[in-house]
């Protein structure tokens, strides 16, 4: 943990060297996702309600998903850019150091410019929070925190899968976008609007629904109490990801490229 702190400080210092560029990138990040928000806004202007969810409720959902994803992208950026790390031989360097590989990869990259997006997520969430007539209590706030943490873990796990595949091939990994960028894009609406089949996939295969749809139902007083704990269950998703990573590292050390 202390080592991670050191990494954090170094990244912060590096960012401060290029303040203007950093600020511009933040604004850019903000604009890029503003796009998606505008799409949602226009759709609700026209349709008002989808599958029983209003605009304000969709904003709550969008805000949380975007925050989960952006946090994961900020801190697990090393895995997101892993093909680069492998190609540049940076992973060799990591292997000759006496520390856990995952910790070192996490430390190697932090993308603070995602703050632009996190900021937008917070604004959307706050707006949805203020205008929706949800009755808030301590338990619900706790649920939101669990959602954000659990969601970051799930997205982090997906990045880890992506990185693990990089050990075997760096070609043709575009399909992983379905699970990362795709989940961010389509996570703007509650998962249930895509139909039962998708909801099932998002519950049992990659647990998006556990960090988004079900706890959201609980927040809106439409779901059972235990829904609020599902984000914790979603964290189990990390186990197979770690296993794949171990396999990947073993393959790397036996093929050396």
């Amino acid at each position, binding site marked *: 943990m202390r*080592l991670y702190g050191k990494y954090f400080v*170094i990244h912060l210092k590096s960012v401060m*060297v290029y303040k203007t560029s950093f600020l511009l990138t933040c604004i850019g990040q903000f604009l890029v996702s503003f796009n998606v928000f505008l799409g949602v806004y226009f759709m609700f202007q026209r349709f008002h309600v989808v599958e029983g969810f209003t605009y304000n409720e969709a904003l709550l959902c969008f805000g949380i998903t975007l925050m989960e994803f952006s946090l994961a992208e900020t801190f697990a950026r090393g895995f997101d850019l892993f093909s680069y790390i492998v190609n*540049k031989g940076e992973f*060799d*360097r990591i292997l*000759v150091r*006496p*520390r856990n590989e995952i910790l070192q990869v996490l430390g190697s990259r932090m993308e603070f410019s995602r703050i632009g997006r996190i900021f937008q997520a917070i604004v959307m969430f706050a707006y949805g929070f203020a205008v929706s007539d949800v009755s808030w209590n301590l338990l619900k706030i706790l649920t939101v925190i669990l959602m954000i943490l659990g969601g970051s873990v799930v997205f982090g796990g997906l990045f880890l899968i992506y990185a693990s595949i990089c050990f075997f091939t760096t070609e043709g990994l575009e399909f992983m976008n379905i699970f990362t960028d795709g989940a961010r894009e389509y996570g703007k609406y509650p998962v249930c609007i895509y139909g039962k089949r998708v909801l099932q996939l998002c519950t049992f295969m990659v647990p998006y629904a556990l960090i988004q749809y079900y706890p959201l139902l609980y927040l809106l007083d439409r779901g059972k109490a235990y829904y609020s704990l599902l984000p914790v269950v979603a964290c189990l998703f990390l186990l197979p990801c770690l296993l794949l990573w171990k396999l990947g590292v073993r393959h790397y050390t036996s093929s050396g490229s």
Partner: protein
Amino acid sequence: MITMQHVCKTYKVSKRDAGFSSAFKALFHKEYEYIHALDDVSFTISDGEMVGYIGPNGAGKSSTIKILSGILTPEQGTCLVNGMTPWKNRIAYVKNIGVVFGQRTQLWWDVPVMDSFELLKEIYRIDTPSYRRTLTELTEMLGLSSLLQMPVRQLSLGQRMRCEIAASLLHDPEILFLDEPTIGLDAVSKLAVRDFIKKRNQEKNTTVILTTHDMQDIEALTDRVILIGKGSILLDGTIEDIKTGFESTEEALAAFYRSHHI
């Protein structure tokens, strides 16, 4: 003490020819070929020795260094470094080695060199008194005192290499692997780096394994050279062994490569 015995390593690579039609063919069918990077390589290096490991590009130099530093697992053969097998129990093993990859940097680009060192202190869990001692020593020997507060991107290549070497030695390793440490350096920096490596080896009895294409490095530093070509060791002896009858080491080496068809 380093021993390598009968180590073999093979890579599988996909063939790819130039041209439009073969690019189209490769859409449907890919061909692979096997390359024997290391073919029954054995040698022993004792503590405190300084060895030059040379050979043409693609001869298997970096595969050997990778195996010795625990990055690569060979499919055959044994390797023991101070009683440990490098690719088993990685974390315990790498505490005792230092590696310099001449073409890559391990320093953080935008922050002062000192910050990178502080991070390495944390990574290697070096206790503060010994960190201070080693740092003072290295600063003095490599002349780093004016560089430590500068961001890496402002350093010249030679200055950066000196910092790079210091970074690899902060944890006081018993064995040092140098992969082309003088590549691209100007004459002054080259001399400084050579001088330091020599001193380090003499004073601390650090075992040094050095790969390079610069024959002057070899002449200045090592008595013993291991020459590898096409994955096999062609010579394990002194540079004088091949030099006889030639004006310069470079010519001798080129003639030697030719006589072995590499």
